[in-house]
């Protein structure tokens, strides 16, 4: 009885159609496809459809009502997302093809101006490159740090699992900015981390490896990547923990019973079973890291700016909305394509 029947019902089509229609109407109103009297007309039409829907629900039997019910529950949320997620994307797309008549023209007009895109891709290629590079390295690092953490909690945590998990997550309940600033203090030239590294004479090798720059950590790529790694660590640890926790420890025993070494058991049993967590975590870390500008701003130098810094600068300081929109759009498209390719490996439901 628990599972829904694997058959579709006819009134579904009506519900789906109505909801899609209302969603499109919402986007139309939000993105300004229609204006003035037409907007009123669209609003009236949407209202009419809603009234008809209610009327059908009341007049129609159990079946009709039941077929409409799921859409009824979805409607408010979906309409909200249509208005405040889809419509903005549309507006942004239009903006990215607009041009400004003068420097202080605050209402750029739509002119199919593709130059915004060519500028975004040429002038800001280094920033795009750095964003993906830093985000990529940070993702790998979160796996390196997060995996042992999640593993230790899931398999060694015993009854303290939840407490330990809480301990790992709790620091991230302090403000993101304050945490990043605190890293700035820790990594400062006269700060404790540099002092500690010097005390154990690691500064030489680290300089040589390019991890430290002339004995400095703050305002180097290392600091930016470190900040990204730190700030997005929980997004890796949580899905990893969820997938590791599901693994029955007896599977490891079974593998060892079947002559596998401890490392072999890990490699052949635990690791493959935890891969969905690794995939989900990677997305959850990579995406926000690629768009971040806080770490690069607080911990970086002029040579470590990421695309987020550029978008923010173009949008909020240079007021070049068309260029900022084009950059945002490129960023989103690159990430969406990456996510689509990546998501072949996992179900969307595994994401959180």
């Amino acid at each position, binding site marked *: 009885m628990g599972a829904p029947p694997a058959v579709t019902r006819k009134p579904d089509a009506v519900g789906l159609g109505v909801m899609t229609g209302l969603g499109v109407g919402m986007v139309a109103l939000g993105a300004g496809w229609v204006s003035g009297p037409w907007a009123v007309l669209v609003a009236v039409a949407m209202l009419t459809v809603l009234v008809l829907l209610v009327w059908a629900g009341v007049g129609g039997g159990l079946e009709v009502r039941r077929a409409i019910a799921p859409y009824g529950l979805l409607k408010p949320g979906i309409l909200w997302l249509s208005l405040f997620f889809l419509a*903005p994307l549309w507006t942004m797309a239009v903006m990215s093809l607009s041009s400004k008549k003068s420097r202080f023209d605050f209402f750029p007009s739509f002119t199919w101006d593709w130059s915004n895109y060519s500028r975004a891709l040429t002038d800001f290629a280094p920033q795009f490159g750095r964003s993906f590079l830093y985000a990529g390295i940070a993702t790998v690092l979160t796996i390196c740090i997060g995996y042992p953490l999640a593993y230790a909690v899931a398999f060694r945590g015993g009854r303290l699992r939840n407490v330990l998990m809480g301990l*790992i997550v709790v620091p991230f*309940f302090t403000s993101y*900015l304050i945490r990043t600033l605190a890293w700035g203090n820790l990594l400062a030239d006269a700060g404790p981390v540099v002092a500690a590294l010097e005390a154990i004479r690691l500064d030489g090798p680290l300089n040589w490896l390019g991890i430290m720059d002339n004995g400095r950590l703050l305002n180097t790529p290392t600091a930016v990547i470190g900040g990204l790694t730190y700030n997005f660590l929980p997004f890796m640890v949580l899905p990893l923990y969820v997938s590791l926790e599901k693994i029955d420890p007896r599977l490891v025993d079974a593998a060892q019973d079947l002559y596998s070494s401890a490392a072999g058991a890990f490699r052949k049993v635990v690791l493959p079973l935890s891969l969905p967590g690794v995939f989900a975590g990677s997305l959850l870390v990579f995406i926000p890291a690629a*768009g971040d500008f806080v770490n690069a701003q607080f911990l970086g130098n002029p040579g470590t700016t990421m695309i987020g810094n550029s978008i923010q600068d173009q949008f909020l300081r240079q007021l070049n909305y068309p260029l900022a*929109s084009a950059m*945002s759009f490129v960023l989103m498209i690159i990430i969406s394509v990456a996510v689509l390719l990546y998501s072949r490996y996992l179900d969307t439901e595994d994401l959180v």
Partner: protein
Amino acid sequence: MSAATSTRQRLGRRAVNTVAGLGLLYVFLPIIVIVVFSFNDPVGKFNIEWQGFTLKHWADPFAEPELTRALWVSLRIAAVATVCATVLGSLIAVSLSRYDFRGRNGVNLFLVIPLTAPEIVLGSSLATLFIDRGVDFGYTTVIIAHIGFQVSFVAVTVRARIRGFDWTLEHAAMDLGATPMRAFWSITFPLILPGIAAAALLSFALSIDDFIITFFNAGSLLTFPLQIFGASRVKIPPQINVLATMLLMVSVSLMALGAAFGARRRKRHGVVAG
């Protein structure tokens, strides 16, 4: 098992634990700095160098009126946005996990997309919409922006938590004469409430701490993170550390409370629906 392998295994085990311990230290390092410096007695504008222990900032955590005001702004925004987003998101989650209907996969995808778009894209696109439509930035725009990213988050979290919920319970209630409304409120709701509450708490935390999206849509409104961002360029009063530590303590106690409540519930109900 030979002595050699068991030694190796013990070593391996110790290595994992050591790495995990170091990881935990890494996680806590900046927090220690934040907490310690809330007791610092800085000379001048900057709370960077350790100067001496004092309790005075704790005695008067609200000494910085602008900071306190910003914290209030953030709390208010988070409260309103979380309530709205929790309702919208939970409805979606209930609909998705309870019904099978045409377009369900589409809705699932639609929900995930906002979660996979970088914050800067969400923030700047929404700001573009507001500018384009001539909407003034302020409370409303920030709340709208927050609800936007929270809805997806709540929907996905609640959906995960109520996956496996036994919807026959609702049938049973109606079979026993309960109206569908009553069946929902007296049976389903109390059982999925922990899941919803957890999602609401998390999205509240997300809202309070959101910087990037808010930065684009706040206009001249200052939320707590925006205030910190402003302060970071001029002077960072120790009260920031005090308030951050207080927020931390509140969330820790909320989590502890949640854990304790959850444990008691599990013991009493056995079956966990949430």
